[in-house]
């Protein structure tokens, strides 16, 4: 049982949760994730760690209400509520090398998992340039934390409501053209990572991406999270979640992410009806 000890809204449908998980907090590293299950009937969903505090025995997760489970968590789970299962830290940690300039790109809620990676890279001695973007300013968060975790920070929004108007790939291409960059990190929606990978590849700079396929157990047991990386089928949960972006078969990832669209809609509708009935 894992109590929520703090919850803070970060945007219209985004919140940050501090959750009791002492064993996870003790061994967590940047790039790793947890699988959580809200309750007895719940599904297991993977969430990349946004932060952790071994002394408090807690982990920080940032969740946007998108599918049934994330919406349920957003609407029904607050301070003092208990998440039935949290398991982790899962996956391989980020390979942190403190040399040269590294560009960390984050899209949307990807800002949360990029934060500990950027912080670790900076601590290790790399020069860290952050690029964070969202559709509009209300979906941006952790600007101060990201400012601290990087040496330079570029902010973009699709509508220009904060920072530069446009997509994260534009400043990324400019930086890669103007400077010597050792590596790019990109975390966010699959489409955004796909275009970051194309941008980095065009500039001949290696890129690490954090893949987010559908998972069930998250420990290498089922293979739901199969991804294709450079002709090889890999399990994102144990071989990843980070992979060289230039080698990822993005179309396959995008197709597989949509495998249960109908069922996801069905589950979300059922949840909405349940909430409506309960509030009537």
């Amino acid at each position, binding site marked *: 049982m894992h109590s929520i000890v703090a919850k803070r809204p970060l945007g219209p449908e985004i919140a940050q949760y501090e959750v009791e998980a002492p*064993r*996870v907090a*003790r*061994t967590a590293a940047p790039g790793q994730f947890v699988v959580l*299950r809200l309750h007895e*009937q*719940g*599904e*297991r969903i993977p969430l990349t760690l946004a932060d952790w505090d071994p002394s408090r025995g807690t982990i920080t997760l940032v969740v946007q209400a998108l599918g*049934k*489970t994330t919406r349920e968590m957003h609407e029904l789970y607050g301070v003092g509520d208990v998440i*039935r*299962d*949290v*398991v*982790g*830290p*899962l996956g391989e940690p980020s390979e942190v090398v403190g040399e040269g300039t590294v560009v960390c790109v984050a899209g949307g809620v990807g800002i949360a998992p990029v934060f500990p990676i950027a912080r670790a890279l900076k601590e290790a001695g790399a020069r860290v340039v952050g690029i964070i973007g969202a559709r509009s300013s209300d979906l941006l968060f952790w600007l101060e934390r990201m400012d601290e975790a990087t040496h330079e920070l570029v902010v973009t929004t699709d509508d220009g409501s904060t920072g530069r108007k446009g997509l994260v790939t534009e400043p990324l291409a400019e930086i890669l053209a103007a400077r010597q960059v050792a590596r790019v990190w990109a975390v966010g929606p699959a489409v955004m990572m796909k275009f970051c990978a194309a941008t980095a590849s065009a500039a001949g700079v290696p890129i690490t991406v954090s893949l987010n396929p559908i998972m*069930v*157990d998250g*420990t*290498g*047991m*089922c*293979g*739901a999270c*199969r991804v*294709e990386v450079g002709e090889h*089928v890999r399990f994102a949960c*144990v071989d990843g979640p980070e992979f060289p972006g230039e080698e990822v078969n993005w*179309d*396959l990832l995008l*197709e*597989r992410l949509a*495998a*249960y669209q109908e*069922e*996801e809609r*069905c*589950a979300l509708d*059922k949840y909405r009806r349940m909430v409506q009935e309960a509030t009537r």
Partner: protein
Amino acid sequence: MIREAQVPMREQDPGSRVHNFSEVPLGYSEEEARQEAGRCLKCKTAPCVRGCPVEVDIPEFIGHVETGDFRAAAATIKRTNNLPAVCGRVCPQEVQCQGVCTLGKKFEPCGIGRLERFVADWELEHGIQSVEPPPPTGRRVAVVGSGPAGLTCAADLRLLGHEVTVFEALHEPGGVLMYGIPEFRLPKAVVAQEVEGLRRLGVGIETNVVVGKTVTVDGLFAEGFEAVFVGSGAGLPRFLGIPGETLIGGYSANEFLTRVNLMRAWQFPEYDTPVRIGSQVAVIGGGNVAMDAARTALRLGAEKVTVLYRRTRTEMPARVEEIHHAQQEGVEMEFLVNPVQLYGSDGVLGEAECLRMELGPPDDSGRRRPVPIAGSEFVINVDTCVVAVGNQPHPLVPRTTPGLEVSRRGTVQADETGSTSRSGVFAGGDIVTGAATVISAMGAGKQAAAAVDRYLGAGG
């Protein structure tokens, strides 16, 4: 006069049971059990006991059943077997206790498995006798994995007075008993009750701990555990490695069964986890897991379920009873067939190209090797393809435990007592043998518990 055949066990009718997930065999009544118990010859040699990996005193418990003292029968079984309700259902008795039964030389062997199940169910129904664990020794042992090996090892160690904590990676204890074996063959409530019995005995169980990730074996020693038993199983699914295997609709048997059994996808959307099932389902493989997947697919509403096996019926590793049940329910079987490529559109599986095979000379396993027949390609319609060609040892624990010797196949090297290359680290079950049976894992767990006890007694 001795009945030549076993007292039959009532079963759900095949026509109705394919529409539900309730258990197929319904169990014996008290009268039926006593009648079957009466068939036991009580032969002095009792080969059945030696045929049992955990050496249940079979003639003694059957004698108690015959006289109607079911509680005594339960006590006899539980002296050596802590999961009788599970074993009575999933043990391959036909090649163990019943395979060597003296009565079986002339007639059908005594229905030992059915009687064990009867006794275990009787006890669960009438209240489990509490066993007083001996005074605590003050020694702490960690058990990695709560499958059959881990649970058996934990129970035995607890009965020897040690403090035991079982670490389970998933959110429910039971390992393969929870995620692998379907509800209609092993109701999850039965597993939960057996696990509850261990908890009452004082065995600690911590779920959601992935040893090798959340904490390492060395980390467990640092937490004060003096010995560690590794029973982390064969949880890594094997795929065919053919083109198209990542199409939507392609599942490992582990994923398919985990979604349905552990996550209860058969109760979607009451439970959140879905599973895709089209009208045409192909299950690749010929073992018990393939039978479980095929029968599960029928229950999920598939129109046609075909098992594709690259050898013949004779080489099928599945238990006869499982094959029989599957065929009764309408599962079709195609022998000497092997898929070579999967096709789909928009990323969704639609067809499988297969090759016909013939049997060539024997391979390493002693079975005749299937050889493809040139030019025999044919295509079948497939919406869902479940790959059930075996599991490999889970690599997490071996990979994160320095000094733990591992074979080329990835299994942990351990002797018959479970001792490994690392002092204080013991191992047993599928992680040592590769994928095998519930009862052999339990046997290994038992041996290891005795070895751990000796190790602790010798001063650790």
